[in-house]
């Protein structure tokens, strides 16, 4: 579904080009839940932005269903660590934003936003402003906003990093439920995280990036049966082996 071919990215640091990502080639098939893990500075977030088409790669190319991605991929959507909700719009208006951008008639946009707000458990909070919500609820709204455009591909950039432990555990479960719900169009997820346990709990496949510049250090399938728990047999071994590859 998504293919990266020898993608590299470098930024200018005081007029000197500094490589952030080097030689990333990756194929993400449909129906897969992929986690990208790596230490800070490994360019995970940059890689995600390149996949989404928000940032162009310095070299190499990104293909979406065989088409080269040159601008923002409107068949995909993204969830952000800081939630990135517009503080001046109500939750409902925030969720409708992407639909208005796609010229959906007003009535349909309203209905669809309400549907997804209900799915993420924000029923009744349509008219609230983001600042009136707790962190977990903000991220639910961010999730609803991304799902409402009915993307084929969902990108998540450390979506649980700004939340407390209990909230993030709950939200993790719900993301997995939404992902496995075949009634929803989204079935392919790429998520960036720095918590290895989180990756092993959620993903079909874990891609490990090395740091400065980021290269693919390992690419592992997670074969543990779902639903998973940290007490599953083999869980700790897998986490440890990924941890060793990072350091």
């Amino acid at each position, binding site marked *: 579904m998504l293919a990266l071919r020898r993608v590299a990215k470098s930024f200018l640091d005081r007029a000197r080009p500094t490589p952030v990502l080097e030689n990333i080639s990756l194929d993400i098939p449909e129906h897969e839940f992929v986690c990208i893990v790596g230490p800070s500075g490994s360019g995970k977030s940059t890689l995600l932005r390149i996949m989404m088409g*928000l940032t162009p790669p310095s070299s190499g190319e990104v293909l979406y269903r065989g088409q080269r991605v040159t601008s*923002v991929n409107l068949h995909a959507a*993204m969830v952000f660590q800081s939630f*990135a909700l*517009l503080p*001046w719009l109500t939750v409902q208006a925030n969720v409708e*934003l992407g639909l208005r951008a796609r010229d959906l008639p*007003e009535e349909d946009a309203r209905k669809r936003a309400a549907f997804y707000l209900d799915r993420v458990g924000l029923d009744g909070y349509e008219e609230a402003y983001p600042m009136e919500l707790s962190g977990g609820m903000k991220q639910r709204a961010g999730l609803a906003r991304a799902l409402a*455009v009915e993307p084929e591909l969902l990108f998540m950039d450390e979506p649980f990093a700004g939340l407390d432990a209990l909230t993030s555990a709950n939200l993790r479960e719900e993301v997995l439920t939404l992902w496995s719900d075949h009634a929803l169009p989204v079935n392919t997820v790429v998520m960036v995280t720095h918590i290895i346990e989180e990756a092993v709990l959620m993903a079909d496949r874990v891609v490990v990036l090395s740091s400065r510049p980021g290269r693919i250090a390992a690419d592992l399938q997670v074969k543990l049966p779902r639903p998973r728990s940290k007490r599953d047999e083999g869980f700790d071994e897998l986490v440890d082996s990924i941890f060793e590859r990072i350091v």
Partner: protein
Amino acid sequence: MSEERTTPAWLPILSGLVLVLFLGLVLGPERVLHVARGVARAPRAPDLLPAAGWSMLRMTASYLASLLFAWAAGYYAATRPGAARVILPLLDVGQSVPVLGFFPAAIYLFLTLLGGGRLSLELASIFLIFTCQVWNLAFAVYEGISTIPAETRAAADSLGLRGVLRLRALLLPACIPSLVYNSMLSWTNGWYFLIACEIIVTGKAEYDLPGLGSILSRALARGDLMLATGALFTLVALVITIEFVLWRPMRVWSQRYRYDTMQGEEAEEETAFRLPDLGIPTLLRPVRALVHSLWERLPIAAANRAAARSAALARAAWRWLRWPAGVALVAGVGFGIAGIVRAMSPPWPREAAALPLALLFSFLRIAAAYVLALAWILPLALWASDHPRQVRRLSLIAQIGASIPATAFFPVLVALLVDRFGGMEIISIALAMTGMQWYLLFNLLGGVQRVPRDLHESMRSLGLDRRQIHRKLVIPACMPALVTGSVVAWGGTWNALILSEYVVYRGRTYEVLGIGQMLNRATFQTGSRTMLFLSIALLVGTVVAFNRLVWDRLYREVHARYRLEG
């Protein structure tokens, strides 16, 4: 705005009637339309209300024009790579040219090209007010757009927001807090310099436009203190009214458009002092509903397509026109520069030799005013840090004080000081202070407010007394605000020199050697373009160099050291 308040049903009707009456007074009687040309009849007290109306209209027109220009300049600077490096210094220069420096341009553009009728005089006056209002608004737009958090920007991109929707959902709201704050500053500045903007001088001829500024100026020149006081009271009443009807609700409303919302801070503002709202929200509700429904009806897709089409058309037209337009622009700018260079080229009048000394004296005067202003404002700000409830009240006082033109204080100062303690020298320092102190107070109060209460409490629980808390916490935490306030105060005072170093009072001219005096003499006495441009070049050079060499560095240093994280 969350809570609905009940207003008596008759209030909106009454307010509407008062508004109609006021407009009638402004526009109705033909004597109001009388344009004082040259030596027309002296203004009298009944002229005050219509004059206030005219001034208000002019200020509004100029403010709207400023908003448009500021949006274009700020948006361009913030979105085009490299544009900021050209536009921001230009804005900086524009900001440091005092309003008298725009007289030649105003006269050429509006009187020479448009014939010199009432309309062209009005336009010239509006242009002059515009030059007092526009610059910080442009900086505000730039700041608003360029401080949108990266993730929010990426979110908007990832949702595919473009064109009108992007403007409406992301860019405009992001500018609202800084625009509202700077609009207040712009209006204050406009009122302050109004006195210099409503009398258009071309060589020997002077044209008065009906307005508070011209009345105040003429009344002082004739020594008619009753009328001057009346004009002053009208001005202050107008400023206070606008504060309550417009800026206070706007400030509360603009809080919604901030990324970082401090809880509980703004709730206080609403309860600090509540005046009856005169039924104005009720009057405005249909207007708001109308605008809202019009917006809802606007087909975004069609609007986007239309915008895209006209952009394509403009690009095509530009492709054909860019050479002629470029040539015309270069020719125009070249013509202007050539004119300025011709005016500035030697032989210089003998007066020019005094320019360096004038600059030095002006500098010393501002420095003295700065020290004097700090001497009373710093203790006041520290007092306010112990009494957080008083901060709002003081802010309002500062804002009103800043709107009163320096010249208005002149009669009092003359009565007290003329021919005593150095006379005009002291007066001019005092006048410079009248403009400068409020900006310092404004910013210091803001700084004091931003010190978190729990830091105060932790200091107190450690057993520090009030004086130690001031020294260890409040003063360091206010350093960034102090520097910001100083930049604004110094910049403003350089411009305000034109009102403080040269005053006509009771038919007599009071002046001291200084760059502001030079500018006034070149405009009102000798009419020498050479002196005007030389003085402005020197002034702008000094201000920009001072900003770059002193304030910029200090600002960076202070921000690195004293920023309150969190």
